[in-house]
């Protein structure tokens, strides 16, 4: 299962709910305002770090760049992908669930 999340973790519960439902080995892709959740030193970083230990966490590069979040601020273990990488993830996982 590939989970996509597009909401800021500071504003909404979408990421928290996604993390609570992602099983071991699932893939999670942070896009749009959810990319703020991929950065170090925030109040939600510990939760995302824990998720990155049991799931594969990805973040969409163009959305990071749009928001001025540089890749060196990313939580360890998170992989940056572009839109083509996003497509590859949906090919590798048979079902995609969007957390809006």
């Amino acid at each position, binding site marked *: 299962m590939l989970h996509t999340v597009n909401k800021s973790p500071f504003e909404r519960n979408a990421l928290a709910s996604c993390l609570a439902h992602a099983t071991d080995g699932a893939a999670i892709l942070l896009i749009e305002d959810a990319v703020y959740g991929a950065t170090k030193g925030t109040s939600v970083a510990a939760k995302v770090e824990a998720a990155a230990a049991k799931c594969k966490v990805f973040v969409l590069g*163009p959305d990071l760049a749009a928001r001025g979040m540089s890749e060196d601020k990313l939580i360890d273990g998170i992989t940056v992908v572009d*839109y*083509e990488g996003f497509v590859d993830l949906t090919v590798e996982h048979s079902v995609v669930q969007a957390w*809006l």
Partner: protein
Amino acid sequence: MKFGILVNEGPYNHQAVDSAYQFAKAAIAKGHTVSRVFFYYDGVHNANKLLEAPQDERQIGKLWAEMAKEHGVDLVVCVAAGLRRGLKEETLAEGFRISGLGQLIEVGIQADRMMTFGD
């Protein structure tokens, strides 16, 4: 691989629309097929032919229509959601068609992957 895409929001107000478009474009670039994009909820506003963003901004309606023309993507607007929001044949942009919600379920059955972009 065949993709179906559900777009839940209108143009400009939410990036969801742009994400759906960029995803579709990348999928096509990689040799996949986007069978159908279904516009539901406020997503129906993507099909409004009167959209006129400032010239230096992306023209979302035109981008969808070009994709439909060049790559045979079926752009379907939900009839019931459109009526509620004032999107009808008289304001429908070229490249889009209006049909029922069944078209969404149908592509969900036929496509290899079903994607949702929304708010």
